[in-house]
């Protein structure tokens, strides 16, 4: 059974003016997330990630289509006991201290007093807020709010965790901590669904990815499959000691050559001309500094996505 199942989800917002057509934000979106996986929901700004998540949480109703969480239709109240949620740039009751805040959410999830106190201090430790536990949230920095928000999503030990841009507002250390936290959740057998517009976040930790553009799922599959799909991959070569600009054999292979002092940057549009280019550099007496293959795919999906969105293109079925 899929932990998240979304089929033909459409959401239109009324334009607010009679006669003016509504804006379609989600357009027949379908996706499924399996039990125990980390699913990255990747899409540019305004593509409909938050809207999808709001439908899943039951904050807004879809215009048409179905969505199920843990086998129950979204909006089923008891199922929420098993779901944790962190909204985008979260706002919380700022008059509560971190401890009171987590206790409050624990009570709302129906936890009893006995286990709760222990769970609260455990989570404050996990997100690194032990020192700030008696401080009111109004005195928290953005990153601290993001952390306490994560703790709030996990307080009741949910089976499914839905996070809307969990790493936004965090410094590199914080981002790594959140990544580790998410990986830790998978080790405990939890399912994690998180949205982001940052490709490396997805590449590093996700089992599977869905790319959403203009309210449609443009591609879905395992990360390595999306990344190594048969797209043209460009290669960048940096070398020293030759004026690559003035070598016609290299010019012929490259799509771009840039000369900076004694360094040359050569961009090959196709990886199969790499050997030839390297041979030419050696022949001319140049020293190789680096070769960087550009695995286009996810990034390309992003950039090509600026055009009209195509139908969902399943890349992998495993």
């Amino acid at each position, binding site marked *: 059974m899929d932990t998240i199942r979304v089929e033909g989800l459409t959401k239109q917002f009324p334009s607010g003016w009679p006669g003016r057509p509504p804006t379609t934000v989600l357009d027949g979106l379908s996706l499924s997330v399996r039990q125990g996986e980390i699913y990255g929901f990747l899409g540019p700004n305004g593509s409909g990630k938050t809207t999808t998540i709001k439908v899943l949480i039951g904050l807004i109703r879809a215009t048409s289509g179905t969505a199920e969480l843990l086998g129950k239709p979204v909006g089923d*109240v008891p199922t929420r006991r098993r779901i944790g*949620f962190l909204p985008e740039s979260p706002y919380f009751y700022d008059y509560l201290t971190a401890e009171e805040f987590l206790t409050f959410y624990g009570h709302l999830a129906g936890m009893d007093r006995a286990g709760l106190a222990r769970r609260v201090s455990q989570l404050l430790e996990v997100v690194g807020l032990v020192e700030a536990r008696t401080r009111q949230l109004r005195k928290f920095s953005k990153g601290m709010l993001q952390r306490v*928000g994560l703790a709030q999503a996990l307080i009741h030990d949910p089976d499914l965790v839905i996070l809307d841009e969990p790493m936004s507002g965090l410094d590199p250390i914080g981002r790594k901590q959140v990544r580790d936290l998410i990986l830790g959740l998978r080790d405990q057998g939890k399912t994690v669904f998180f949205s982001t517009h940052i490709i490396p976040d997805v590449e590093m930790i996700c089992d599977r990815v869905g790319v959403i553009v203009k309210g449609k799922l443009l591609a879905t599959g395992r990360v390595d499959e999306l990344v190594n799909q048969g797209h043209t991959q460009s290669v960048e070569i940096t070398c020293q000691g030759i004026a690559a600009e003035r070598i016609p054999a290299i010019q012929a292979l490259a799509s771009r050559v840039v000369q900076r002092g004694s360094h040359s940057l050569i961009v090959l549009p196709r990886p199969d001309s790499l050997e030839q280019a390297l041979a030419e550099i050696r022949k001319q007496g140049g020293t190789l500094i680096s070769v960087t293959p550009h695995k286009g795919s996810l990034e390309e999906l992003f950039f090509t996505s600026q055009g009209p969105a195509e139908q969902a293109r399943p890349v992998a079925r495993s």
Partner: protein
Amino acid sequence: MWSVVVIALNTFRENLRDKILYNLVFFALLLIGASILLADLTIMEHHRMIADMGLAAINLVGVVIAIFVGIGLVGKEIERRTVYTIMARPIRRTQFILGKYLGLVMTLSVNMAVMMAVFLATLWLYRAPVHGALVQAVSLIFVEVLLVTAMALFFSTFSTSTLSASFTIGLFIVGHLTMDLKGIAEKSQSETVKAVTTAAYYIFPNLEMLNVKGQAAVGVGVPYAYQATASLYGLLYTAALLVGACIIFQRRDF
């Protein structure tokens, strides 16, 4: 049910931390200060003035808190998006609305109780008579405050804070004028005016029904049957507004 209590207690805590009860200091100073200033009136007049002012101040403070905290109860949660994480919990939207309402009612109860105590203390200080009519008047003020809170909450489920405040204040004023509407209906020649004003008379809450301050200040009570009917009327109106608020809140997108 448990969720309603959790939300209510948290709302009460929010009110306390927002220092809403500080208004009590203002209330006490005002009442006692004015009583001292007016001490050169005749004894009878002085006692009546204290009773008048006390009741009016209790009413004013209660209604002001009901309106301005009431519109923020749910309105602020929507505007500041704190409602997102609450709605993601195993709690029904109806339970949330009721919890928020009960939380403010707790605050208002404490506030009214303390105001009542200060009022009685002032009366006692000046050896003014304390009669049952005063308690009756305050109990009806409390019903009015419950009703106004429900009005504010109702409007804030579908409009911005500024609009909700305007609607609530508007309805509060109209609510005190419904008797005039009835008067217009009786006198008017035009059938349309008659129909509209009669409809308005029945639709808008009749808040004057809950106002017995004038006679209470001179020690004249109302029959218990009247008090019971008026209270029941106010509470039913409150319940209707809360049901309306729940229905609207249930359907809205965030």
